[in-house]
């Protein structure tokens, strides 16, 4: 039997590492002297930084509370000129209680890419948000749905509960995320730097990203 590419690659790796002692690797020995967060912040400061960084990358940030959320969503849909919207199965129906005159699709896994291409807006929650980088992470939980939902429509409204869903930094975010779920990390709307290395917004993903921050303990 001829040697497979797998066996040959592993043989070459082992031959190449002849100078290395063949011990069982222990990744916990890697020195990690970097910081787990770049500042100590109050929950309000953390949310404020998230809003600043989202805005810096051209996401539109809106502040509201649970009671006023349906009105905020209705206003954003009207402002965008939305005629049809899609929501994943876990989005509470009362989020849309103030919305009228718009066709709402409830996704249960059957909408095709072509159908979604005719839908204006998607409304979702999120897994968490990272203040220092202005990043929202979606993990396909029921309030976020299949990845295709937040990709094909041109307008994404994303709702974040503050301060509970906001972490400071990347090192604080990763332990909360489950890599066995497909994850989508979003930092501002679709953009490109491919023309003269200058960032312009709006290529294939949603070109408008509305982020609603819910503050329920505001005085």
């Amino acid at each position, binding site marked *: 039997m001829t040697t497979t590419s797998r066996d040959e690659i592993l043989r070459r790796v082992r031959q190449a590492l002849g100078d290395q002692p063949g011990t069982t690797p222990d990744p916990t020995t890697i020195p990690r002297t*970097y910081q787990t967060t770049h500042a100590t912040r109050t929950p309000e400061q953390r949310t404020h930084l998230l809003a600043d960084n989202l805005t810096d990358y051209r996401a539109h940030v809106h502040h509201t509370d649970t009671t006023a959320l349906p009105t905020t969503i209705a206003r954003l849909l009207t402002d965008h000129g939305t005629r049809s919207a899609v929501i994943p199965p876990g989005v509470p129906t009362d989020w849309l209680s103030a919305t009228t005159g718009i066709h709402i699709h409830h996704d249960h896994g059957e909408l095709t890419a072509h159908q979604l291409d005719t839908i204006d807006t998607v409304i979702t929650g999120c897994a968490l948000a990272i203040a220092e980088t202005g990043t929202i992470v979606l993990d396909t939980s029921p309030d976020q749905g299949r990845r295709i939902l937040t990709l094909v429509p041109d307008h994404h409204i994303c709702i974040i509960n503050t301060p509970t869903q906001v972490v400071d930094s990347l090192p604080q975010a990763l332990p909360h995320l489950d890599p066995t779920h497909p994850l989508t990390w979003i930092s501002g709307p679709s953009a*490109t730097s491919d023309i003269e290395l200058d960032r312009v917004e709006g290529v294939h993903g949603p070109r408008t990203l509305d982020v609603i921050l819910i503050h329920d303990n505001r005085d």
Partner: protein
Amino acid sequence: MSRTHLGLPTFPQAARLSTRDEQLRANLRHATSTIRTKRATATSELSDWPQLRAAGAAIKDHTLHHLDHYLEQLETAVTTAGGTVHWAIDADDANRIITDLIHATGESEVVKVKSMATQETGLNEALTQAGITAYETDLAELIVQLDNDRPSHILVPAIHKNRTQIRDIFHTRMGAWGRPAPDDLTDTPADLAEAARLHLREKFLRTKVAISGANFMIAETGTMVVLESEGNGRMCLTLPDTLITLVGIEKTIPTWRDLEVFLQTLPRSSTAERMNPYTTTWTGTTLGDGPQTFHLVLLDNGRTDTLADTTGRQALRCIRCSACLNVCPVYERAGGHAYGTPYPGPIGAILTPQLHGTTTPLNASLPYASTLCGACYDVCPVAINIPEVLVHLRERITQGGPTTTNGTKTTIKPAKRHTTERTTMRTAAWTLNHPAAWTATQRLTTRTRALHPRRLPGKTARAWTATRDLPPVPARTFRDWWQHRDADAKDTPQ
């Protein structure tokens, strides 16, 4: 087999032409100076940048030193999560595996996410020969593909084109590949991006097979990570039924936690952003979400040969950010095409000769495509000492020595083209080892200083001084001054 062919001009030959292209020079100067300033700002936001850089290097070194272990762990994790793992010893092996996988789906067209690994293997050409059309979906790759051009930058393959040139390419070429550009297309970047969006959307919605690379593969979980900006990556990773991902074996990292380092350093080093707009991570397949068939093709293609070189293996830490290209004075003036390979700039000058050997004149010229100024080392987010490896490779080319080729340890002979350099160095070494000879040489040199030419005679020596001034020789040698310093002091009035 690589895309580096015997017939390609050496770096100096290609650079002699490209440096005369004033449009190219202007485009590169504009783009690289823009990104240099932005990168400096983005990295200065993080007070622990040196620690992140050190951790990035340490994670990569740790993985490389146990690469066999981590590759087997990765294979098990991907397989458990519903993926299929293939191993490709070289470019032909990888192209054959991928072609067979596409044929098995019955499809004849694929969408592609920008991937350096597929550039390296020449996958698009192999697919064309097999009757499969590959659509590049990254904006810059699309520009290059429409123009039948070659990429000139790792991150922005069309960096050598300005907005007006891109508008013209879209105007004349888009129609041949699908939806044409609108007649009134302007050269504003937003309009150009819109034209690309419309052109590619029908391809995303229709195509059943996608090909991608990956920035990282996580051994403990079997997770693939792709960082991108435009959303074309998400389209390719989400919409098709079948996903084929080709990744170099050195892209492995041990744990999920390791992303906390690279997701901070890679976006800031490449596009100078706190975070790139989109990152997708996936593990095998997920019922009801995304491609239901996932193939991972692990590529060697010279990486294990590189790993065998204890000085040169640090090149395998590279996370393809392209910061070294953007700061390199040679890259900025010569452009990416002069390097003749998919990996241009300082990292290409050390990666290509190691992946594919130094037997071609082009590859043997690449370690010399540098002034050794060290700017590339300074900006590298995984601290690859590029100047050190450049000098190491120059030594190997001029003096020969042990190396590994296709998994076999071998000794390469000194290159024929460097005989003058070798003779000079050998003579210098002998003289420096014989104090009497050295003193006599120095004395002769200082006494005849008035007669020294500004340019050296002889073909090779003249070539050297064509772009350099000979250093002026002082009237006295240091030894002479040292021996007579007491007498000199007495002569000097207090």
